[in-house]
C-alpha cells in the first residue's frame, strides 16, 4: 500500500493568534517495501508529518493517499487505515491506557477481534521482538523504567502486524543492546515485506538501516535521497542542526589529510575496509 503525500500543510490552532504552521507544501511517495529514514531538528515537523500518514491529524490543506485513495474522502474507514499503518508514538505515555503491560500490548489485537489464543500469541511474539521479559507483563505500565516503557510502546504496535510501520524516535532511552536488537528485528520484518518509516536523531541507526533518507527543516522537505548521498553532505546537515555518523566525519578528515578514501562511508565496517585498503596501498607494515 503505497503512501502518497501531495502538497501537505498543517497549521495548529488555525485562526488564533498562536497559530503555527508546522509543515508546509510537502509532497512525496513511499512505495511498498521501502525503509525510509526521516530526520530533522527538534520542532522541524517530523511528528506532525507522520501523524498524517495514518489519519491521526487532518491536513489543513493537501492530500494523503493510501493505495491511491484519499484517506479523508467519504467512505474511507480511518480505523482500517490505522490497522494497516501502525504508528509508535514519540512519548510512550501517549500510548498507555491499560492496567497491566499485558493488556496494553493486547489492546490492538483485541480491538481487531482476534481470539484469545491469537491475542496471546501476538503479545508473546511482540515481547520477544522488543526484548521484554515475561515477568513484566503483569505489572502496571507506570511501574517500569524508561526503556522498559519504550519497549512496551513498540510491542503494542508490532502486535497488530501492520503493513506499514512508522516509528517516532523509537530508540530514545533504549540501551545499546536493546536499540540494536530491536532495530535488527524490525529490519527482519522489513525483509519479509513490511514498509518502515523511522524517525530518529540517531544518525548511526539511520545510516545503518535506511535506504532512503528524507530531511525536514522548519516544516519543509529539503532533501530526499539515498542515505549515502544525504549523509555525505556534512555542511548541509550541520546547517539543519544534524550531523553525519562519526565514521563519516572521520573519513572526511582523513581525506583532508591526503588519504584516498571514500567520503560516503556509513558504518564502522565500511570505514575499517577503506582504512585498511589505504594503508596497504601505502605499504604500511603490519596493516593486514
Amino acid at each position, binding site marked *: 500500500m503505497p503512501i502518497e503525500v501531495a502538497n501537505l500543510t498543517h497549521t495548529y490552532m488555525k485562526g488564533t493568534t498562536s497559530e503555527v504552521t508546522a509543515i508546509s507544501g510537502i509532497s512525496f511517495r513511499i512505495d511498498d517495501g521501502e525503509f525510509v529514514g526521516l530526520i530533522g531538528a*527538534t520542532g522541524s515537523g517530523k511528528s506532525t508529518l507522520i501523524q498524517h500518514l495514518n489519519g491521526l491529524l487532518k491536513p489543513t490543506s493537501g492530500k494523503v493517499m493510501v493505495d491511491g485513495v484519499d484517506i479523508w474522502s467519504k467512505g474511507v474507514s480511518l480505523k482500517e487505515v490505522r490497522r494497516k499503518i501502525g504508528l509508535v508514538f514519540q512519548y510512550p505515555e501517549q500510548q498507555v491506557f491499560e492496567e497491566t503491560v499485558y493488556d496494553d500490548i493486547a489492546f490492538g489485537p483485541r480491538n481487531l477481534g482476534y481470539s484469545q489464543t491469537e491475542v496471546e500469541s501476538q503479545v508473546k511474539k511482540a515481547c520477544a521482538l522488543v526484548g521484554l521479559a515475561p515477568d513484566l507483563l503483569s505489572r502496571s505500565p507506570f511501574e517500569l523504567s524508561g526503556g522498559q516503557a519504550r519497549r512496551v510502546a513498540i510491542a503494542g504496535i508490532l502486535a497488530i502486524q501492520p503493513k506499514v510501520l512508522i516509528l517516532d524516535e523509537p530508540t530514545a532511552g533504549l540501551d545499546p543492546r536493546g536499540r540494536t536488537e530491536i532495530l535488527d528485528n524490525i529490519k527482519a520484518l522489513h525483509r519479509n515485506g513490511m514498509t518502515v518509516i523511522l524517525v530518529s536523531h540517531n544518525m548511526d541507526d539511520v545510516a545503518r538501516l535506511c535506504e532512503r533518507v528524507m530531511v525536514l527543516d522548519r516544516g519543509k522537505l529539503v532533501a530526499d535521497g539515498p542515505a549515502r548521498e544525504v549523509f555525505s553532505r556534512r555542511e548541509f546537515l550541520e546547517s539543519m542542526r544534524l550531523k553525519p555518523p562519526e565514521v563519516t566525519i572521520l573519513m572526511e578528515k582523513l581525506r583532508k589529510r591526503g588519504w584516498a578514501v571514500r567520503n560516503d562511508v556509513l558504518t564502522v565496517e565500511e570505514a575499517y575496509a577503506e582504512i585498511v585498503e589505504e594503508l596497504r596501498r601505502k605499504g604500511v607494515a603490519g596493516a593486514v
Partner: protein
Amino acid sequence: MAEVEKTRGLEAKGVFFRYEVDESEKVLALAGVDLEIRQGEFVVVLGPNGSGKSTLAKHLNALLLPDEGDVWVFGMNTKDPGLTWEIRRSAGMVFQNPDNQLVATVVEEDVAFGPENLGIEPGDIRTLVAEALKSVGMEAFSRHSPHHLSGGQKQRVAIAGVLAMKPKCIILDEPTAMLDPSGREEVMKTIKRLNQELGITVIHITHFMDEALYADRVIVMDKGELVMSGTPKEVFSQWKEISQIGLEVPPVGQLSRRLWSSGANIDSGTLTVDELVDELCRLRSQT
C-alpha cells in the same frame, strides 16, 4: 567536624531499594550500592534499561529513601526529614522530556519557579534568574515563550531552573535522549562548562556512549549494582565486560580496536575522531 562536612560530596553506603508492585511482589532496584562522588566531579552513569540508574538518581536528591543503607548529600543524610528541602535545593534534577518540564508561558518565569518556592525576595530572584540564564547561554530568550524554543534550548532552560536555586550538584536523567545532534552537543557543552567554571558536581545519566567522554569518571550499573567505575578510557578498554552488560564502545572506539587487533600499530583505546585521525596519519607516514 564542620570542616570535614563541607568537603563531603555525595555518598551512598550499602543502599538497597525495592519498589512495591503489590502486596506480594517487590522489585529489587538497588542491590547494595556503595558510591562516593567528590564535590566538583563530573560523573556519567551508564547501564542497561532497568539497571537502577534513575532509582539511584532519585536517591541522590531524596525523592526516594533507601530501604537499607544510607545516602548523604554534602554531609546531609537523606533520611532526616528536616533536611529534605535543603537536599533538593543543593542537588537539583533535570529529566528527559523537554516538553513537560517547562510550565510557565515565559522563559524567565519558568526559571524563577524554584527560587519563588524557596520564598526568596523578588529582587534577588531577578538576579538569580538572570545569572542562571546567562550560565546556560539563554539570556537573550528570557522573555520568549518556551514553546518556540528548540529541544536543546528547552533543556538549557530546564537546567537554568535548577541553577537558579544555587545548587552544588545537578543530576541529569537522560536530558539528551530526545534531542537532535546539535541540541545534544549544546547541552553537553553547557553542563561541562558549569562543571568547570562553577565547580558544580554533575551526575549525568545517558545511553549515548560518546557522552561518557565528557566525564571525569564513568560508572556502570547492572542489575541494581555498581559494576564498573573508572575514566572513560579505563571503562571502555574493558570491551568484553561492556558488551556482556549490553552496552557498547562508541563507534570510533570500535574502529580503533578493530584496526589494532588486525595489526595496525595504533592505540587500541582511541575514542575520538581527532585522536584517531592523528594516530592513523602518524602510522601512514611511517613508510
